[in-house]
């Protein structure tokens, strides 16, 4: 089934959907320009703006009824692009996720950041992020999307480096920004290529003209867009920034580096489905990247002792699943988006849970210093475990339905991809169980000055709401294909609707592998004692602990050649260009140093030279006169 027509629209809540972007943007402006005067109530304003956005999103969602509406706001680059919004089932799903989970994280941050003197700045950046992310998903053309894309990149940079007095945080922020530039380069060139090929950058125009372009062009555009998506979504080979991004405050990791921003790449691939559906090679590359990342992220997650980095590896892995789904065409889109939404809930849930644990443990992140926390922070533990059960795909919880949908579709499409995705699910079962056992069960390995306690209600209530979403959302979206039918006007759907089977081969194999992973984790980290200092481990452990040598690879392939290049340039500049200029100056300086000896300071020397000059002149005149 083809996507529906886009209808220009004005008036009503949908016509006012620009408010969704404007409210948080206004909040950010007030908090940043107002400065210290807004310190006392800044965080409430931030929460209010985010909640306001959420209310607008809900009202627009209720009015939408499966339509696709474009709302023209103003001309941006005359003749090329205007700023206009596209409100359709796909964008409104994202809006609900961003503003809904975003508002919960805003509320949580009131508690989490209560001791931070810069809390107001934090909320300003969070609001800025929400505004940019909403522009990204609501824009009806690639120019607006790119502005939002860069806006979230900026907000991500500012928030990773929020504690910029820590050198590691400053370095991590820079790393995220630079790695994202590589992806942005791909996206930008892809946009240029679309402009020269189709003469338009609006989604509606391009999807109608895809037939005019050759398959080679479509493949090139698809691969360039994928490069952009890889940068933003931390997919191989641009994954290295996400693990370091955990230097930011935990609510940032939950909102930006788990629930929303890192899924922008998936959004881009699904939104550009009309390009990818015409370029099977690009689609194949998307699925390969997805599978490679889902395995790489899972392997990294298995070895990390830092709870946030373990969750970051898990995020990479889960986005790998979404990419895999997004590369499978209309059959996979709904599952990719469904997994994206449920992942937004359960991963934000677990990140905020990790933040709550850190809050009680003096910001300790090393899981080897946790253990036995279940009894002292019950709400955090229970909500975290619900998120955990959801992500490993425990039957009837959210992750079970959405991840299983992706695996089934992949299996239908290509057996190898399908089985690799099943293997990734087994690894998920292992590393997430390891995390839960190390944190909440087993012997207490706390530092002597640690006094773990439950967090205040402002932090636990968002956890409870998110965990409710983690339980029910997946089933609600997937059973009877609710999400697929809802998204169909925006992204199309397969002719034959999938039917959920609990007893399919892939589904049972996934469950079995997850159970094996969880049991292995129980024996190694639940039953056996966890050493407080990490053992050296086999080479596989070291490989995973060092992020699969991703940084070393970047260093060897890119950084060192770059350094050589700069060294050659510096040498050439110092010896070649500076040598020429300095040599010339030294020659002039040296010769004038000798010449100045002629200035003796005696008046008669000067008088003699004047006389001599006058005599020469007179002689020359006589000579010329006689000729």
């Amino acid at each position, binding site marked *: 089934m083809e996507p529906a027509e886009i209808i220009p629209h004005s008036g009503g809540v949908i016509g006012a959907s620009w408010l969704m972007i404007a409210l948080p943007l206004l909040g950010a402006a007030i908090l940043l320009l107002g400065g210290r005067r807004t310190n006392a109530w800044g965080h409430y304003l931030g929460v209010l703006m985010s909640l306001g956005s959420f209310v607008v999103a809900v009202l627009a969602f209720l009015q939408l009824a499966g339509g696709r509406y474009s709302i023209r706001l103003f001309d941006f680059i005359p003749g090329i692009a205007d700023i206009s919004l596209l409100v359709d089932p796909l964008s409104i799903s994202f809006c609900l996720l961003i503003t809904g989970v975003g508002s919960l994280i805003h509320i949580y941050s009131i508690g989490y950041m209560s001791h931070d003197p810069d809390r107001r700045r934090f909320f300003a950046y969070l609001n800025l992020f929400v505004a940019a992310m909403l522009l990204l998903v609501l824009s009806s053309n690639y120019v607006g999307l790119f502005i939002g894309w860069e806006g979230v990149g900026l907000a991500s940079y500012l928030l990773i480096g929020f504690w910029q007095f820590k050198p590691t945080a400053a370095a991590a922020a820079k790393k995220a920004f630079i790695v994202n530039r590589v992806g942005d380069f791909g996206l930008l060139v892809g946009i240029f290529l679309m402009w020269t090929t189709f003469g338009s950058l609006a989604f509606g125009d391009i999807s109608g003209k895809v037939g005019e372009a050759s398959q080679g062009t479509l493949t090139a555009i698809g691969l360039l867009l994928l490069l952009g998506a890889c940068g933003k979504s931390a997919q191989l080979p641009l994954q290295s920034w996400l693990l370091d991004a955990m230097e930011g405050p935990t609510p940032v990791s939950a909102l930006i580096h788990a629930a929303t921003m890192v899924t922008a790449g998936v959004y881009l691939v699904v939104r550009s489905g009309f390009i990818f559906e015409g370029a099977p090679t690009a689609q194949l590359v998307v699925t390969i990247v997805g599978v490679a990342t889902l395995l790489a992220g899972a392997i990294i997650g298995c070895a990390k002792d830092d709870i946030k980095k373990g969750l970051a590896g898990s995020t990479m892995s889960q986005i790998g699943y979404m990419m895999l789904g997004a590369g499978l065409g209309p059959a996979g889109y709904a599952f990719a988006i469904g997994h994206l939404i449920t992942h937004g809930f359960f991963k934000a849930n677990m990140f905020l849970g990790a933040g709550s644990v850190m809050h009680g443990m003096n910001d300790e992140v090393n899981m080897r210093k946790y253990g036995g926390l279940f009894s002292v922070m019950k709400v955090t533990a229970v909500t975290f475990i619900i998120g955990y059960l959801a992500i490993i795909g425990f039957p009837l919880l959210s992750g079970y339905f959405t991840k299983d949908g992706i695996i089934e579709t992949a299996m239908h499409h290509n057996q190898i991809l399908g089985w690799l995705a099943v293997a990734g699910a087994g690894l998920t079962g292992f590393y997430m169980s390891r995390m839960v056992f190390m944190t909440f069960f087993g012997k207490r390995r706390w530092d002597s000055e640690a006094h773990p306690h439950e967090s205040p209600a402002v932090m636990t209530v968002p956890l409870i709401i998110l965990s409710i979403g983690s339980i029910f959302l997946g089933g609600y979206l997937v059973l009877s294909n609710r999400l697929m039918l809802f998204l169909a006007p925006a992204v199309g759907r397969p002719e034959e609707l999938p039917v959920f089977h609990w007893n399919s081969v892939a589904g049972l194999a996934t469950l079995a592998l997850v159970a094996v992973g969880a049991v292995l984790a129980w024996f190694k980290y639940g039953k056996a004692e966890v050493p407080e200092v990490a053992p050296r481990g086999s080479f596989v452990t070291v490989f995973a602990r060092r992020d699969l040598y991703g940084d070393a690879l970047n260093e060897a392939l890119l950084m060192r050649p770059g350094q050589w290049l700069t060294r050659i340039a510096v040498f050439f500049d110092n010896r070649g260009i500076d040598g020429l200029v300095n040599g010339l100056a030294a020659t002039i300086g040296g010769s004038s140093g000798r010449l*100045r000896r002629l200035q003796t300071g005696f*008046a008669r020397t000067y008088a003699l030279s004047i006389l001599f000059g006058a005599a020469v002149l007179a002689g020359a005149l006589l000579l010329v006169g006689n000729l």
Partner: protein
Amino acid sequence: MTTEYLVLSALLFAIGALGVLIRRNAIVVFMCVELMLNACNLAFVTFARMHGNLDGQIIAFFVMVVAAAEVVIGLAIIVTIFRTRRSASVDDANLLKY
């Protein structure tokens, strides 16, 4: 018969120039400069006579005016230097050099 005047003028100029170059006393150097100026004046007046017009004589007056002004400033400088350095020797005032 004007040739003799020109020869005299050249002689006076040469004496003046030599005096400027070889004498050390600033006052004497100054007088030699005046001598050179007056040698020029003599030449100007002679040429005026030779060509039968008044141009040379007018220029001679200009030279006298300028010379008078120069004497005022020059003597002032010499006196000032003498006051600060207790010497009127041109070789002692040699600070302005490399």
